[in-house]
């Protein structure tokens, strides 16, 4: 490992612009003649639109246009799509209703966009939007998934009878039932996975620019995957052909999944830019983010886990109702199915598993993938069941887990996944040591002496990243491939530019991706630049989500570097009159092994571009690309242990210690990996303790639509984290990476809840475990 190569704790190259206020986010973009948009949104959860009267708004100062869904339809702009087909158990395709970028006839959730106002200033656009009169006939609304399935519930889309989108199953139900019938002990639990609102601190934004002379569109937007946005806007929404549409995702202020999707606003801003002839910028405010960013989780499940007389798990059956919201967002169907039930085996040998998922429309914001996406839900189900089982069986929670660990790899689960590697004992041991598990009873006594209730809880998770080989996801219903691309451009002076299809919105790619290059070519990190986020500069790529920038994006770079290395060595061998197989690259030089003959990297690069003296048949230049398609999912795993103190007077929980021990495979930059874990933990602990999304069940109004009502985790709500790593290199990719972006949010919620229920001696507790809920649970 070099000082800047793989494994080095390199400070971030991108930081200078952010700490000096020179970051360039979508709202910072200014183009000549730019005007401002405000969306008219439904104040009702469910209503028919009788008509829209914009006459007063249109006459207000500064107003350029008020445009509605009918005009959008007249111009042939298509429906917003869901990119993953799921078939129900009976073989029928999912029942997807239409999602119009601007609602024409019916609005289905509070915040559904019905019109756009374009004006000279933001304030004028906002003023005029309030003067747009929409005639609504209010319809009954339903916000909870189980209620939406009940007879007589409001019907949200004509395509989905009884609001059921699909009724899907994975695993062998008959075998699972038979095993449960034989079980010596069955653990039964009702589990609620609370709805979350992602809350990247930068609100979503879009700036649409239309060049009439070239019939060309440019969209600056807060996207995690600008190429996917271009593909979808071109192929499905008829905004513009791909070669006439440039999508730029500049600095993006956090995503966590919520900026994967192509939302109505960017489509409408581009379309409005053409209709009005002026560039149109929309910047969402926080209320709009709460109302319209894709929400997350929202599962209600029943779990049955069967054990034999020797405490081996013999069967697991899970029945889940997933709230999809008012429309099917891009990955909304995959999140509660193939990203969820496929992980129900966890770290354990479970010979029989069956998961059933019913996906349901409600009059709430669309629900889609958010940090972890399906895997937190699976982990929460499994790890609450494991701790509950340990209590019911009267065995130690550590020993019950250890007894059922998978120890031989590869391991084929009954729910698709083939785990390639892992060492669950090692991560468990690392976590136990770091938290000083053995001395917990003494700490509990000490807390008791101070009148506090102390508890310890754990969670052993496994997850799947990447996401997967394109052919495999295609066979499961994905509408896209999940490879990644990279191009390595060696300039004539030897500096290197990497064009990557991954997108950084906080992950530090400009540093870690450069480290991969430094490691291979021995160049100083200043000589390597990373280019991303612009479809005019970078070849087609799939973007960043599912912790895929490492295991897929960086491996694409490694593959392209292979090709660069081959050509560079061949050229150096020619220049040095040596054999190609004798050339090695290190410290910015190409050397002939065992001799003092060498050529500096920059001279070799220059020779490639002057082309005065190339080996016979070699093309000039030095630029290579690769598309890397993973061979398998990658499987990060970990053990998280949380220790809490609960104040019995107030029900207030304090996290007094938290250990995260993870196996992410090889690590490119430990500083950045630790940062990813910290952030994930904060989101997972936020889910467990604080973040609750509340819709009024009658009116469908979002009660928690601001930071005053939706509790974001603050610095004082969180502890300093203890982070540990154990490494089993991933065998399915060249760099041995497993991915680290989501683990913190996946493993932490059950660890926190298991700790609180341990402290208070009552297992009947739902997230978020607010002081009121905890206090109430303590009274029972």
């Amino acid at each position, binding site marked *: 490992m070099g000082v800047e190569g793989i494994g080095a704790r390199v*400070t*971030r190259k*991108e*930081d*200078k*612009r*952010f*700490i*000096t*206020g*020179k*970051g*360039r*986010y979508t*709202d*910072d973009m*200014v183009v000549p003649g730019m005007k401002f948009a405000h969306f008219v949104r439904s104040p009702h959860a469910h209503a028919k639109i009788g008509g829209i009267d914009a006459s007063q708004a249109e006459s207000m100062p500064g107003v350029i246009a008020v445009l509605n869904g009918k005009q959008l339809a007249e111009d042939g702009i298509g429906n917003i799509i869901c990119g993953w087909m799921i078939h129900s158990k009976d073989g029928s395709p999912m029942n997807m209703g239409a999602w119009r970028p601007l609602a024409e006839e019916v609005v289905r959730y509070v915040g559904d966009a019905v019109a756009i106002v374009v004006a000279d200033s933001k*304030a004028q656009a906002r003023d005029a939007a309030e003067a747009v009169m929409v005639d609504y006939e209010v319809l009954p609304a339903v916000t909870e998934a189980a209620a939406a399935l009940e007879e007589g519930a409001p019907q949200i889309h004509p395509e989905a009878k009884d609001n059921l989108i699909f009724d899907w199953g994975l695993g062998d139900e008959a075998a699972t039932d038979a095993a449960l019938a034989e079980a010596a002990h069955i653990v039964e639990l009702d589990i609620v996975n609370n709805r979350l609102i992602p*809350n*990247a*601190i*930068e*609100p979503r934004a879009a700036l649409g620019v239309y060049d009439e002379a070239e019939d060309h569109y440019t969209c600056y937007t807060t996207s995690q995957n600008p190429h996917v946005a271009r593909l979808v806007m071109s192929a499905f929404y008829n905004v513009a052909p791909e070669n006439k549409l440039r999508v730029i995702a500049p*600095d*993006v*202020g*956090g995503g*966590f999944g919520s900026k994967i999707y192509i939302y109505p606003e960017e489509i409408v801003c581009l379309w409005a830019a053409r209709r009005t002839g002026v560039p149109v910028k929309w*910047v969402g*405010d*926080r*209320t709009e983010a709460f109302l319209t960013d894709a929400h997350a989780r929202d599962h209600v499940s029943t779990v049955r886990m069967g054990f034999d007389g020797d405490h081996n798990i013999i069967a697991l059956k899970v029945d889940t109702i997933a709230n999809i919201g008012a429309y099917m967002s891009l990955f909304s169907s995959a999140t509660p199915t193939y990203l969820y039930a496929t992980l129900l085996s966890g770290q354990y040998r479970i010979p029989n598993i069956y998961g059933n998922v019913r996906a349901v429309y409600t009059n709430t914001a669309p629900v889609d993938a958010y940090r972890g996406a399906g895997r937190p839900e699976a982990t929460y189900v499994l790890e609450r069941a494991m701790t509950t089982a340990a209590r019911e069986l009267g065995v130690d929670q550590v020993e019950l887990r250890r007894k059922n660990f998978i120890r031989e790899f590869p391991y084929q689960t009954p729910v698709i996944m083939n785990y390639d590697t892992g060492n669950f004992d090692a991560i468990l041991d690392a976590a136990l040591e770091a938290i000083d598990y053995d001395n917990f009873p003494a700490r509990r006594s000490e807390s008791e002496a101070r009148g506090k209730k102390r508890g310890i809880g754990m969670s052993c998770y496994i997850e799947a990243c990447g996401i997967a080989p394109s052919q495999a996801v295609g066979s499961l219903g994905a509408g896209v491939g999940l490879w990644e691309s990279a191009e390595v451009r060696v300039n004539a002076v030897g500096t290197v530019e990497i064009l990557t299809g991954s997108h950084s*919105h*906080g*992950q*530090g790619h400009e540093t870690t991706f450069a480290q991969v290059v430094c490691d291979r070519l021995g160049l100083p990190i200043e000589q390597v630049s990373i280019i991303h986020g612009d479809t005019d500069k970078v070849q087609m790529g799939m973007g960043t989500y599912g912790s895929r920038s490492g295991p897929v994006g960086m491996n694409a770079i490694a593959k392209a570097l292979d090709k660069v290395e081959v050509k560079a060595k061949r050229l150096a061998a020619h220049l040095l009159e040596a054999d190609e197989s004798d050339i090695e690259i290190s410290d910015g030089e190409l050397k002939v092994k065992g001799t003092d003959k060498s050529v500096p990297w920059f001279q070799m690069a220059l020779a490639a571009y002057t082309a005065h003296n190339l080996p016979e048949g070699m093309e000039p230049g030095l630029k290579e690309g690769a598309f890397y398609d993973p061979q398998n999912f990658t499987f990060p795993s970990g053990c998280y242990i949380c220790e809490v103190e609960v104040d019995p007077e107030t029900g207030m929980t304090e996290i007094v210690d938290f250990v995260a021990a993870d196996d992410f495979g090889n690590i490119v930059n430990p*500083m*950045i990996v*630790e*940062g990813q874990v*910290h*952030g*994930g*933990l*904060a*989101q997972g602990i936020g889910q467990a303790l604080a973040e609750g999304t509340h819709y009024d069940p009658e009116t469908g109004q979002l009660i928690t639509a*601001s*930071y*005053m009502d939706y509790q*974001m*985790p*603050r*610095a*004082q709500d*969180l502890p*300093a*984290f203890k982070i540990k790593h154990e490494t089993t290199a991933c065998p399915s990719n060249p760099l041995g990476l497993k991915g680290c972006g989501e683990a*913190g949010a996946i493993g932490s919620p059950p660890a926190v809840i298991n700790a609180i229920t341990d402290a208070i001696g009552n297992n009947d507790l739902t997230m978020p475990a607010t002081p009121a809920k905890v206090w109430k649970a303590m009274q029972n």
Partner: protein
Amino acid sequence: MADINLTVNGRTVSGTCEDRTLLVQFIRENLGLTGTHVGCDTSQCGACVVHIDGKAVKSCTMLAAQADGAEVLTIEGLASGGELHPMQAAFREHHGLQCGFCTPGMIMTAVDMVRRHGGQLDEKTVRHELEGNICRCTGYHNIVKAILAAAEEMGAGAKVAAE
């Protein structure tokens, strides 16, 4: 309309804006200083923190007109002569930022925190005083570390200067 005269980052600036214009809008849109960010509508997130006459203030909580005559320091004015402020350097050194969106507000809050406590800060105080700044990326762990490190350095600097 309001005529505004301010000193921003040591330079005298003036402009005209609607009476209802918030200071943050004036800074971003009239002055083009886009390092100060807007992350919410309710003065909770702290992405817009600047210094007004030496004190940390959320620039979304006041009208531009109310800041008339004031001395404003934004994130762009914190480094001097190409030298990063110790707080900026500490955020980089300790990986106290990821997406960078909350960072300007965090740094401006942190600088004021150190000033008020004279460099005598502990973890609990830092965590408590970050109540008005929300970060969704870092879990605050490295932000707290960065502030404590910078406080120590700034405190030591102040001590040397006093001697």
